[in-house]
C-alpha cells in the first residue's frame, strides 16, 4: 500500500516483534567451525598429511552428499548453512588419521544422508550425524578402524606416506591408553599426563589435545553457541563415578585420583562433551532435560569403560542418550507464576 505522507513505496505488515538479534544458522555453524580449527591444525601437525587428507575428504563428501540428497529429494538446498561442513569436520576428528579415504567417504554418506537427511534434515535428526557415521565405520570396518592407530612417536615420517594404504603404516595396534587400562597394563606418571594434556599421542585426529578442546569449549561458551549444562554434568558424572568405583576396588584415594585424571585425559570424553552432547538437534532443548541428558551420557560412558567390552564408551553413550532426548524435553523449568508462593497467593486470593 502506498502512502504519500510516509514518503515510501512498500510497507510491510506483520505481527510483532519487528526486531531481531540477527543471528543465523550459518553464523552459528561458522562459529563451531572456528572452534574446531585448532583441533584440525593440531591434528595435522601431530598426524601429518594423512590427517589433512582425511579432514578434506570428510568435509567435501559431507557437503557433496548433502547437496546431492537435497537435489534428488527436491528439497531446498541449504548447504550454505554450513551444517554439513561441521558434520564433515566432526566426523574426521573422531576417526584415526589412517582411515582409508573410501571409508571416510562412506562414513560421511551415512552421517549426512542416513542420520540427518532421511530424518528430515537439520534440526529434525534423532541421532548425532557424525557419531552415527563413526559408529557405522567402527562396526563395519572394525579390523581397520580399531587397530590402525598411527603413533606420532614411531619415528616414521608423517609427511611421506600420505596417500598409501593403512597396511603400510607403522600403526600401533591397541595403542590407546584406554585399552591398556582396560587390560591393566597401563603405567601413568606426571610426564605421561602432560603429554596427554597437550595431545602428542596416538588417537583420533581431533580428540588427543585436551588443552585445545578446553579452549574450544570456553570459546563456544563465551560466544553462547553452546550451553554448559550437558557437557558439565556429563564430565562431572564420569569424574564422580570413576572416583567412587576406583576407591571401592582399590581402596586408595590417590590411585582413584589418577584414574579420574586419566579418564579425563584419554579417549573422546572431553571432545564428545564439547562438540557432541552440545549438538542442538540431538540433545534436549530444556534446561533440566540437558542436565539429565549430560548425566545419562556420563553414566553410560563410565559403565561402558568400566564394565563393557569396548575400551571407549563416549560414542555409544551419546547415541543411546540421543534416543532418549525427545522424551527429556518433557522435563521443563518451572513456569513463571506456578511457584509455591505464587500458588499460595492465588489460593488466598480465592
Amino acid at each position, binding site marked *: *500500500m502506498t*502512502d504519500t*505522507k*510516509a*514518503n*515510501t*513505496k*512498500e*510497507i*510491510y*505488515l*506483520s*505481527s*510483532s*516483534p*519487528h*526486531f*531481531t*538479534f*540477527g*543471528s*543465523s*544458522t550459518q*553464523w*552459528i555453524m561458522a562459529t563451531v567451525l572456528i572452534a574446531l580449527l585448532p583441533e584440525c591444525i593440531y591434528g595435522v601437525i601431530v598426524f601429518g598429511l594423512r590427517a589433512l587428507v582425511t579432514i578434506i575428504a570428510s568435509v567435501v563428501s559431507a557437503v557433496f552428499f548433502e547437496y546431492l540428497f537435497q537435489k534428488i529429494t527436491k528439497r531446498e538446498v*541449504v548447504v550454505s*548453512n554450513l*551444517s554439513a561442513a561441521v558434520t564433515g569436520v566432526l566426523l574426521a576428528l573422531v576417526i584415526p588419521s589412517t582411515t582409508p579415504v573410501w571409508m571416510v567417504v562412506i562414513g560421511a554418506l551415512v552421517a549426512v544422508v542416513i542420520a540427518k537427511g532421511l530424518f528430515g*534434515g*537439520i*534440526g*529434525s535428526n534423532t541421532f548425532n550425524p557424525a557419531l552415527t557415521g563413526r559408529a557405522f565405520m567402527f562396526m563395519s570396518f572394525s579390523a581397520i578402524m580399531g587397530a590402525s592407530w598411527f603413533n606420532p612417536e614411531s619415528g616414521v615420517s608423517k609427511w611421506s606416506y600420505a596417500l598409501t594404504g593403512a597396511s603400510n603404516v607403522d600403526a600401533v595396534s591397541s595403542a590407546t591408553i584406554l585399552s591398556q587400562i582396560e587390560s591393566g597394563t597401563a603405567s601413568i606418571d606426571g610426564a605421561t599426563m602432560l603429554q596427554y594434556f597437550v595431545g602428542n599421542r596416538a588417537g583420533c585426529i581431533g580428540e588427543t589435545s585436551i588443552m585445545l578442546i578446553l579452549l574450544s569449549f570456553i570459546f563456544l561458551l563465551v560466544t553462547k553457541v553452546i*550451553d554448559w549444562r550437558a557437557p558439565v554434568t556429563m564430565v562431572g558424572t564420569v569424574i564422580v563415578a570413576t572416583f567412587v568405583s576406583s576407591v571401592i576396588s582399590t581402596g586408595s584415594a590417590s590411585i582413584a585420583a589418577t584414574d579420574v585424571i586419566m579418564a579425563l585425559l584419554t579417549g573422546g570424553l572431553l571432545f564428545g562433551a564439547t562438540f557432541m552432547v552440545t549438538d*542442538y*538437534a540431538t*540433545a534436549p*532443548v*530444556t*534446561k533440566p532435560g*540437558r542436565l539429565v541428558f549430560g548425566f545419562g551420557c556420563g553414566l553410560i560412558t563410565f559403565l561402558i569403560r568400566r564394565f563393557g567390552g569396548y575400551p571407549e564408551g563416549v560414542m555409544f553413550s551419546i547415541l543411546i542418550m540421543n534416543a532418549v532426548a525427545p522424551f527429556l*524435553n518433557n522435563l*521443563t*523449568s*518451572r*513456569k*513463571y*507464576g*506456578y*511457584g509455591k*508462593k*505464587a*500458588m499460595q*497467593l*492465588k489460593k488466598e*486470593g480465592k
Partner: protein
Amino acid sequence: MKTHTFKGGIYPQEMKELSKDCAIVDAFPSTKTVTIPVTMGGAPNTPLVKVGDVVKRGQVIAKSDKFMSAPVHASVSGKVKKIQSCLVTGNMEVPCITIEADGSNETEYMPVLDPFTCGKQAALDRIRDAGIVGMGGASFPTHVKLNPPADKKINYVLLNAAECEPYLTVDERTLLETPEKVVDGLNIVMNIVGAEGIIALETNKDYIKPLLENEIQKNNIKNMSVALCKTKYPQGCEKNIVDAILGIEIPAGGLPADAGAIITNVGTVCAISDAFRKGMPLVDRALTISGGAVEKPCNLRVPVGTIVGDLIPDAFTLKQDATVKIVSGGPMMGFAMTNTQFPVAKGTSGITFLTKEETYLVDESQCISCGRCVEACPMHLTPVMIVRELKAENLAGAKKFGLMDCIECGCCSYVCPSNVRLVQRFRIGKGIVRAKMAEERAKASAAGVSK
C-alpha cells in the same frame, strides 16, 4: 545499590540515543482536525455529540454507564465534522469522532481538587471522570485498577519507568523534564490505595534517580523510593518488574494485585496529577517519533486523536523510500500499520518508522533446536516445544509447555537464528484455544438450560 533483575530476557539494541536528548515539544496536526476513537480502553462508549455540535477542549464527547469504562473528551475546541469508522492501532476500524479545531482554544475542564483531602471515592471518581487509562499501551481504566477487591491487600505501587522497549524515550523525557509531576502523581495513587511507592528505573536512566529522590525529599514523602533495574527487555512487563523488585511472582492467571502490587505508568501518573491539580482530563499525550527512517527523531506532545500523518511535515519528516514498517509502539511489541492515517490514542507511546536494515523481512528457515528461545523466555516457557505441539495440532501439549502463559513479549522470535515466527504463532494458537474454550462454555451452558 542493588540492581534488580529477573531470569531470562534479552538485550536488544536500545536505539534510545536517537531521541533521548530531544525535549518534548508541542505539536498540532496540520489539518487542524483530530479523529478521536469513541472507546480507548474499557467497556465500549456511546458518543454524546452529533455532527455539527460545537465542543470545547476537555468536554466529554463519549461515555458509558458501565463501571469498566473510561469517558473520552474533546482534545481540541471546535466543531464535530464526522462520526464514522476509522483505522486505529491494530489495523482495526472503530467508531471515531472527527473534530475540526476552530482555533479558539476554549476549554471546559473540571474544578481543581485536592487529592489528599477529597476522600478515596471522590479521588477515584475524578480519575474516572478525567478518562484516565493505562498509557503504557494496555489502556486499562485506571480507576478500576486502583480499586482492587477488598480482600486484596495492596502493599506497593510500582511506577513502571523501565521503558524497556527499544527506541521509546517519552517516559525518560517526562521523568527528566517534570519529575515533580511524576512524584506528585505517584503520591496521589499511593494515597488512594494506601501503599508504599517504588519508582522502577532501568540502569540506562540512572542519571534521573537523584532528580526523583530530590523531589521525594523536597515533598517529604516518607514511603516513596527509587529502585534501579538492569537494562534488559522485558523489564517493564508487569510480571517481570514485580518479580525483579519485590521478589514475588504473580500467580498464573492472576493480576499484580494478587502479589500485593499495583503497577502504573509514567504518563498515567502525570495525567492523574493534571486531573487533580489542573482539573484537566486526559486530552494530550506525549509520544516518541523514532526509527531509522525518521529524518529527525523527536518527542512530541499532541492532542489525543491526532492523525500521525498530519504531523508530517511540520513536526517530523521521513527519509525518501526508507520506511518499510510503520509501527505503532516500539519494535518489540508494537503494531505494524498499513499507513500513517491513524490517530494517536491514549495508549500510543510512540511511532517507530523502521528501515529495511532495522527490521527483518526474511522467511523462516527450519528450526535447529538450539534452545535459544528457552533461554530467552522471561516466563520460563519452552517456546520451541509450543510451536512443535501447535504444528502437531496438540493444544493440550502446547498448553503444557506454556502457550497460555505467554506474555507475547517477542524475546523468543528475537533470538531465533532461523527467524521462526514463534510468538506470532502463539497468538494464533491462543486464539484457537480461547475459541475452543468459549465453544465448550457455550455447550455447557446450553446443556445446563436443556436440563
